[in-house]
């Protein structure tokens, strides 16, 4: 009565038998393949047409036979089954770690996006119409730019990095250009305001000119004055310089991508031509110097 009753839900013995039989099956099969392979005419006498591949095949079959044999041993089966019990837990842990990491990264990105605009608090929103483009440029630089600078990995990383650079530089150029164009538009708004005031004043005094050309001349003069004032301001000079720099940076990033594309085609790249031009320039300079020295 001490016979252990088999639990119907216990699959250990069934698994043991299955693993053992599978190990024996694959071990025998590998042994047969090996012996058949050795009997093939193209392997006889070591006259194999491709001895290296035959040797590789033989080694693989022997390995497979050895592994299958080892797997069929009771201690291996027990170890495997023990491990298999721990596997779901391990996999769950791995999945939790990975998801947790991605979740954290995602959360931080969302947080960063949520902060968008917070850095612009230093500006006076009473002048939001005039500051909006500057605010946007600042927001872009502080909050969005970093997304294009996430390190790229793998075989294509260099190309991907360059493509990201183009997008980043293009976005930045667009935001500085908007800021610059907005500044250039300001004198129009101001000139219009001045004209309204002047016309109102003249209407009150009964001195409105009949000739429309007079209004136009007045407007152009006021507009010119506003531009001259704007051009002298540090804000304008600084924005202009930043726009030119942003355009140059975008052009350089775009050229870098185009150079990569061109390198796949049978045409010279700009940098190749520049190298050649520099060599030609230096050679000509040396030649002229020598010519001058000789004619002296």
């Amino acid at each position, binding site marked *: 009565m001490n016979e252990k009753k088999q639990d119907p839900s216990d699959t250990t013995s069934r698994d043991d038998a299955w693993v053992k039989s599978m190990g024996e099956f694959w071990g025998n099969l590998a042994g047969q393949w090996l012996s058949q392979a050795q009997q093939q005419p193209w392997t006889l006498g070591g006259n194999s047409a491709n001895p290296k591949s035959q040797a590789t095949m033989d080694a693989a079959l022997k390995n497979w036979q050895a592994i299958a044999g080892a797997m069929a041993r009771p201690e291996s089966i027990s170890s495997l089954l023990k491990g298999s019990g721990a596997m779901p837990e391990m996999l769950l842990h791995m999945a939790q770690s990975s998801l947790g990491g991605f979740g954290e990264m995602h959360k931080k990105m969302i947080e960063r996006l949520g902060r968008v605009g917070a850095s612009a608090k230093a500006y006076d929103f009473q002048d939001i119409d005039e500051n909006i483009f500057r605010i946007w440029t600042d927001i872009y630089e502080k909050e969005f730019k970093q997304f294009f600078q996430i390190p790229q990995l793998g075989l294509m990383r260099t190309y991907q990095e360059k493509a990201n650079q183009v997008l980043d530089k293009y976005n930045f150029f667009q935001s500085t250009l908007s800021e610059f164009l907005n500044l250039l538009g300001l004198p129009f708004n101001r000139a219009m305001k001045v004209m309204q005031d002047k016309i109102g004043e003249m209407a009150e005094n*009964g001195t409105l000119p009949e000739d429309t050309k007079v209004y136009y001349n007045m407007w152009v003069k006021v507009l010119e004055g506003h531009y001259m004032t704007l051009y002298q301001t540090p804000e304008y000079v600084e924005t202009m310089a930043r726009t030119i720099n942003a355009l140059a940076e975008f052009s350089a990033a775009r050229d870098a991508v185009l150079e990569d594309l061109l390198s796949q085609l049978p045409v010279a790249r700009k940098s190749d031509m520049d190298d050649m031009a520099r060599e030609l320039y230096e050679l000509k300079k040396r030649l002229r110097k020598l010519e001058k020295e000789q004619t002296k």
Partner: protein
Amino acid sequence: MTQSNIPVDLILAKLAEEADKVQSRASKASEVLLDDLDTAIAKTPYEVVYQEDRVKLKHYLPRTTIRYKTPLLVTYALINRETMLDLQPGRSVVERFLDSGIDLYMIDWGYPTRKDRFLGFDDHINGYMDNIVDFIREQHKLEKINLMGICMGGTFSVIYSALHPEKIKNLVTTVTPTNFDTKKGLLHVWMEHIDVDRVVDTYGNLPADMMNLGFLLLNPARLMIDKYVGFMEHMDNKTFVENFVRMEKWIFDSPDLPGEVFRQFIKDCYQGNKLIKSELEVGGRRVDLKKLTMPLLNIYGKFDHLVPPEACEQLVEKVGSKDTEDICLETGHIGIYVSSKFQGEFAPKIAGWLKDRDHLPPKKVVRKKTAAGKKAPAV
């Protein structure tokens, strides 16, 4: 009932009148614009007598007897083209010089391409200019020739004359920037803040379109609006349209500026102001303005927004020459050359000044300053 302060009836009548005029003008304008317009520029005949790479030397065919022993070489800027001096027959500085009997040469810098991006001050001044001066000296069997520079070409001429004073008899500078430390000209203010290395390293040469846009932005109200409103108002006038198109052709016929020239011009001149302090180095040699011992005539425009008087007027004080003259004309940067009125003043002035110094050895003359194009008082 009181009468309105606003003469609505008169304004409306004027508007109606204007509308009629516009309609009539538009009808005539279509005839003018479709007509055979003469808009060619630089028509005065010349020969190309020397060429090196893209740079050519024009020698104008005499229109009268040559009355000067010393030929005149005109050096234009690398920005825009020398054709401005010969926009149209009857309104041409070139014609006026030729009619005075001057044997006239002019440098045509050509259109720099990307391969010219490495050419700097040294290559243009000690290279092309020096070779051209040597060529003319050899042709005329002369030790020295007369040199006239315009705008950046004037800056080049000042540098050249300081480095090669033994080859220049008389120097004429017109609207020539030599002192860059001024806030009067917008270019001077703007250029202080430009990251020239980034621009040159990216583009190689400074693109002409970028330069043109910069010049238009200097005064958009006048250059981008009022100018074309003026054109619309006169487009039924064939002569006006022809002159306008000639000017447009010249303004937008802009070569790219060689990158290294731009880099050095901005860094050493606009940002470093080295020329007027005799600290500039070209080709490994210091440009010492005291070496400018030849007679110097310095002409500039009172209303020049690109090269204001403050950028020009210090030169005569800094040179080694005792024979100097400053002339400040009441006009702008381009007006000196294209306005009939100022052409009539400044071209004969230069011709006369050169004539005075052509036959006789240079006299000791006290420094003179002439305002608004008036004749300098006799000393």
